[in-house]
């Protein structure tokens, strides 16, 4: 039997360290899906002296505050929605609009690369049209605003999108 020299022992320890570190570093974070939260808000200008926010919009109040509107009403809030990579996840907002999320991958720096579409229908029976198509790199914890979607009831719709992973 070949005696174990210190060099051989060190080599084996080093290889084990390398393997462990590479495995730890290479573990896919959040492997197959990513979680999103979406706030769809009706923003109107009604001449109020102080801006008002509907219940449920506390988390996005600071994001909405700089917008040139004084009244923010909730249209749809969907939190912690899982979206599989390389697949469409449709979030219906109302009878006119839907947000479609298509996560592509998690970048090395932690951002989520995803395609988003805001589909709109003039009538419920009409085929959807892409009011907006975009590819974004979304930083976890940061909020993306989509603004300017006309609403039948007046004002415009603001969509706030965030990922927690």
């Amino acid at each position, binding site marked *: 039997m070949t005696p174990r*020299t210190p*060099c*051989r022992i*060190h*080599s084996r320890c*080093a*290889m084990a*360290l*390398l393997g462990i*570190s*590479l495995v*730890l*570093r290479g573990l896919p974070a959040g492997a197959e899906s990513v979680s999103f939260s979406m706030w769809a808000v009706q923003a109107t200008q009604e001449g109020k002296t102080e801006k008002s926010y509907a219940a449920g919009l506390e988390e996005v109040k*600071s*994001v909405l505050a*700089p917008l040139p509107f004084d009244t923010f009403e909730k249209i749809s809030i969907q939190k912690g929605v899982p979206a599989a990579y390389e697949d469409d996840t449709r979030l219906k907002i109302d009878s*006119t609009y839907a947000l479609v999320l298509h996560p592509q991958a998690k970048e*090395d*720096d*932690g*951002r989520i*690369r995803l395609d988003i579409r805001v589909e*709109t229908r*003039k009538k419920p029976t009409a085929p959807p*049209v*892409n*009011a*907006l*198509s*975009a*590819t*974004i*790199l*979304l*930083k*976890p914890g*940061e*909020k*993306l*605003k*989509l*603004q*300017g*979607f*006309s*609403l*039948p009831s*007046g004002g415009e719709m603001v969509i706030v999108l965030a990922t927690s992973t």
Partner: protein
Amino acid sequence: MKTCGWMEKVEVYFDGEHGDAPGVEAHVAQCHECAAYLKQLQVLRQGVAPLREVRGIEDAQFGAFMAGIREEIETPVRASFGGLWAMVSLVAAALIVALAVFSMFTGPQPVKATEVKSISTDLPGATIDVKSADDGPTIVITPSQRYQEDIQ
């Protein structure tokens, strides 16, 4: 196991160092145990006798003996592959440790801000703009007046 008190004297007698050899011989003649012990010592000595032979170096051989030593001393040492492999192993281990430490401590890149890579719209006459702010970007779409009227 030594039980007879004379056994140590028997050992000294066997080595030829005991002063009272006749006394020991007289005791051995009477004591079976000491007699057996003495016999055992004699057998042992006969057994190891060949090992005690010391080969001397005759004067005639001395020159060749010294020449052999000189040859061993003066012959250049051949490269030791054992030492080379040890060095290679050490260097490889050091490289692997360095890689492991680098891999562990460099970690993932710092997360950059949200970024809009591309935007488009299928709404006729609509324009799109991206506004950057500290709290993240805003994509602003401005539909045409006609579309807004259609929706409302």
